[in-house]
């Protein structure tokens, strides 16, 4: 085989999460009480448009979560076994190969052909002059630098035409397969779709899909020839870094919840259902954990982890593995600080449910406690869990940036928006400023968090009984 699959811990967990989500989807589709609120979410144009954007992020993150090591080309005679590169790559790295490999010397501005900082260059006559060297990859295909404007315009136009074709194809497919009623012409269906007269807000979804397609087409056409968002201190393409950071953001936002959910659910429900000493104990645990300001608890945890890793360096020699363990630990520690809130909510709700007549009726029927908890209580608190999960997501993504800035976030060598901001913040003092790393990180983060917030809002409105009026 030309490659060897590498499954990192976080990869495994994210695919587990994907499986859980799919299973939930199937379960929800079969249960009316779940289908009805989701139907309400589906009718919300803003939420569905946000979902399309979110889906683009998620797909990027998933593609970035298939890791492997390439086989090295060693002459057959010398190698008894196949030798694989120590570098762990992902499928996304292959798809973005030009972005990944076009590494310049140091800073360069977006679409620049010359480096941002002047360098001492030795002239053929032996004298030294300070000049802005030409970049190695950006605009390499240009014959004269003056052609840049025209070249960019041509590439943009090509991207626009490509995305228009693709978008029309998708829209037509949606109109034909999803919108068209029996006996209706495809043309009429398309008309209804464009006028927004569909139950599911296809128009809004296609609009945001159009934006996504256009962005992807722009990157595909321009990314190989220029550095769209410039390069950073070590000459790495900033756009590529921002894209690679998507996975980190997604993982922090989802795995943290996945890690803490079983504890919060089990503890909250047990405390509320059994009361007595079980309740006292669980309350004590979460009172203790929540009394430590969460930033400080994370600091304490990460510092301790740093020390442990430094003293057991041998176990974390592979850089990908080290990054991965650090990320996972961060998720666990974040989970420890966030589960108490959910646990408290679930405990309160369970105590309320425990006195509901239908639980009392189940007790009177002789149903066992474990069955009451799994069959009655957990299904009736799941809406709280779901609301909590979607609302937590964006907060965690934002927290990652802050923690990385403080120095207790993900591994400093890992691609993350927090690290990008942290690395670029000092360059704000330069004149003119190096703004593109910051801008890229904030833009990517803002888009994802906004989409997540809009979607979470719709989910909360649909699932929270108090929101129904």
């Amino acid at each position, binding site marked *: 085989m030309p490659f060897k699959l590498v499954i990192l811990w976080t990869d495994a967990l994210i695919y587990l999460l994907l499986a859980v989500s799919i299973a939930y989807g199937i379960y929800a589709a079969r249960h009316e*009480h779940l289908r009805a609120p989701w139907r309400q979410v589906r009718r919300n144009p803003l939420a569905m448009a946000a979902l399309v954007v979110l889906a683009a992020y998620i797909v990027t993150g998933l593609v970035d979560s298939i890791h492997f090591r390439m086989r090295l080309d060693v002459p057959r005679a010398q190698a008894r076994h196949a030798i694989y590169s120590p570098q762990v790559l992902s499928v996304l790295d292959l798809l973005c190969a030009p972005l990944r490999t076009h590494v310049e010397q140091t800073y360069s501005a977006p679409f620049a052909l010359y480096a941002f900082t002047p360098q001492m260059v030795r002239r053929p006559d032996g004298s030294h002059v300070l000049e802005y060297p030409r970049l190695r990859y950006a605009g390499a295909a240009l014959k004269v630098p003056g052609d840049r404007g025209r070249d960019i315009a041509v590439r943009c136009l090509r991207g626009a035409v490509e995305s228009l074709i693709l978008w029309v194809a998708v829209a037509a497919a949606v109109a034909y397969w999803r919108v068209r009623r029996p006996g209706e012409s495809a043309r009429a269906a398309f008309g209804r779709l464009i006028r927004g007269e569909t139950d599911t807000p296809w128009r809004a979804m296609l609009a945001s899909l159009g934006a996504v397609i256009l962005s992807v087409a722009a990157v595909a056409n321009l990314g190989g020839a220029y550095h769209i968002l410039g390069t950073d201190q070590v000459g790495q393409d900033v756009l590529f870094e921002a894209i690679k950071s998507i996975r980190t953001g997604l993982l922090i936002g989802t795995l943290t919840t996945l890690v803490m959910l079983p504890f919060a659910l089990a503890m909250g429900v047990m405390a509320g259902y059994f009361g007595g000493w079980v309740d006292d104990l669980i309350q004590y645990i979460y009172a203790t954990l929540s009394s430590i300001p969460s930033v400080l608890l994370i600091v304490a945890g990460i510092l301790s982890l740093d020390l442990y890793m430094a003293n057991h360096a041998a176990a974390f020699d592979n850089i990908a593995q080290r990054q991965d363990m650090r990320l996972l630990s961060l998720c666990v520690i974040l989970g420890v600080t966030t589960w108490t809130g959910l646990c408290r909510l679930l405990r309160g709700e369970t105590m309320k449910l425990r006195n509901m*007549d*239908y639980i009392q*009726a189940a007790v*009177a*029927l*002789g149903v066992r406690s474990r069955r009451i908890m799994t*069959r009655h209580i957990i299904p009736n608190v799941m809406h709280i869990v779901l609301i909590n999960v979607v609302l937590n997501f964006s907060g965690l993504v934002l927290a990652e940036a802050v923690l990385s800035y403080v120095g207790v976030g993900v591994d400093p060598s890992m691609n993350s928006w927090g690290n990008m901001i942290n690395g670029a913040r000092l360059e704000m003092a330069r004149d003119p400023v190096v703004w593109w790393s910051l801008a890229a990180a904030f833009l990517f983060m803002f888009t994802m968090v906004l989409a997540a917030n809009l979607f979470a809002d719709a989910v909360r409105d649909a699932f929270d009984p108090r929101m129904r009026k």
Partner: protein
Amino acid sequence: MPALLKIDGLKVWFDTTGGTVRAVDGVSLDIAAGESMALLGESGSGKSVAAMALLQLLPQPAGRIVAGRALLGERDLLRTPERDMRTVRGRRIAMIFQEPQTSLNPVMTLGDQISEVLPASWPRRRRRERVIYWLDAVGISDPGRRYREYPHQLSGGMKQRAMIAMALAGEPELLVADEPTTALDVTIQAQILDLLKELQRRTGMAMLFITHDLAVAYQVADRVAVMYAGEIVESADRPAFFGGARHPYTQKLFRAVPGRGKRGEMLEVIPGGVPSLTQEFRGCRFADRCDYAWDLCRTTMPAWRVESGHGVRCHLYGGAAGLSTPVAAPRPVAVPVREIGPGQPLLQVRDLKVHFPIHSGILRRVVGQVRAVDGVTLSVGTGRTLALVGESGCGKTTIGKAILQLVAPTAGEVLFEDTRLDLMTPSALRPLRRRLQVIFQDPYASLDPRMLVSEILEEGMHAQGIEVATAGRHSRARDLLEQVGLGAEALTRYPHEFSGGQRQRLCIARALSVEPRLIICDEPTSALDVSVQAQILNLLRRLQQELSLSYLFITHNLGVVEYLAHEVAVMYLGRLVETGVVHEVLEGPRHPYTQALLAAVPSIAGNRTGNAPVPPSAGLPRGEAPSPVNPPAGCHYHSRCPQAMAQCRTDYPAPSRISATHWVRCHLYPADTGPS
């Protein structure tokens, strides 16, 4: 008399996700100055919505007034801008609501809340005096102190009095009272109704009294209008209305009220439920549930016809027939009531006590007890119904839960078929649970909203190991549904798809699924409309006779007791004050509390000639029940008893035997040392 308020063709629609609900669909009504008009209807008939629309207090933005006028003098209330409405609300039309618990602002003093109604230009002292005047006028003792108190420091009845004071402080021309006594106990209801009538007489204001209770309407109204599915179907002066209701719906309502006179017959039921208001009606709205309906009723909307002040919307009274020929009531269906003798007791409760500790202080020491149940002895025979009667907070629900071991008894014995339930471990108790089951009050809270009906019905069978095979459980669930009068198609549906009455049927089916001998019915009909209540009572009685079930029937409704029970136990503050066979207790009540309860029940006087009702205030207990934390010494009832003697304040009365089956605990009767 000139009309004070003239409502004409009022239509209020609600925009919901399920479509447009025509909650009020063309209501016309006149109220004269000083008149008392009862707007009668079951839940969902639109009566409250109509009243809210008058004050433009509909929930926004869902509700909208589509058509109509409401003239208060020259002013059309429905088209008055919000700014001017403020001069109408509270000043010309005041309103009191059903739930005194939630209708007062919890964080403001009563004085502040009532003062808000008074002109802001008045000096503070004048407002204070005025508020105290009104607090006094509604019968709140020590008004100077109450002025500074917060709502939570008042009992439910007191809160409703405060609401009335707040409404009257603006000296309105019209008082809209939206079910003001529904949330109150029957003795308090009688006090509040008396108060309202008295205040109306003194101030000369008109009153629009919204209620679902025929007897309450009889007590307060000069005229009655009946609403059904968004429109008024009948309206008449009180004597004419109670002397001879004309609309088939009204007639049925009268016959669905349970009572002793109907003991030997099935209660009249109105089949089905109120039609969905999202549709546009073509014919009569009641046609589908009406015994007399014919083709015309389903195709043409009946017109409103009035003859000598008695209006009705029904095709029966159209054309040549005229209004003077009321339709003869159908003969009630008699059912042979198989009275089973006392026989072997199935359930015996001896000296049961349930105390809830009150913790306080640094170490949370127990500083007191809520004596919810304080020494109750009762027994239920096979195939018989014991009614446990009492007002809210007297501990009757706690008894039910303690028998089921859903709360742990503090002391006493619970014997079921000679087994001490109170001594058993939870796991040993589990197989016995199939023998005694429970039905709760609120049909909306007693079914898990996340479970299919089939899952709900099969849960007990699964837990008790009845019908281990899936197919067996399914077929049994279908049988159960049939037994309670629901179709098998219900199996694959969720509880929210059913109406309140249907849900209560499901609860009964769930209880029956484990073949119990005794069912504890905790107010199973008090959340239901009268017509639906009749269906459930009929069902419970039929099941008792078919399956020889025993019921412990917990209720506050004496009409239901008279209809269903064999024995009665009257409870006050955690203790039984009187027990006996139903006719002994209800016809010859001995304990002053039982007498007061019976006197307080609003009733439609036996003669339907339309004489003014006798004020029920004679013999009513004073004030409200004290807290079970500190029950009065001696007889618990002495603080409210009009006949209390010195002895009552010190000694708890021993049981006195009135007959072999009739016992009472009161110093008015010589103590008997026989077995209690």
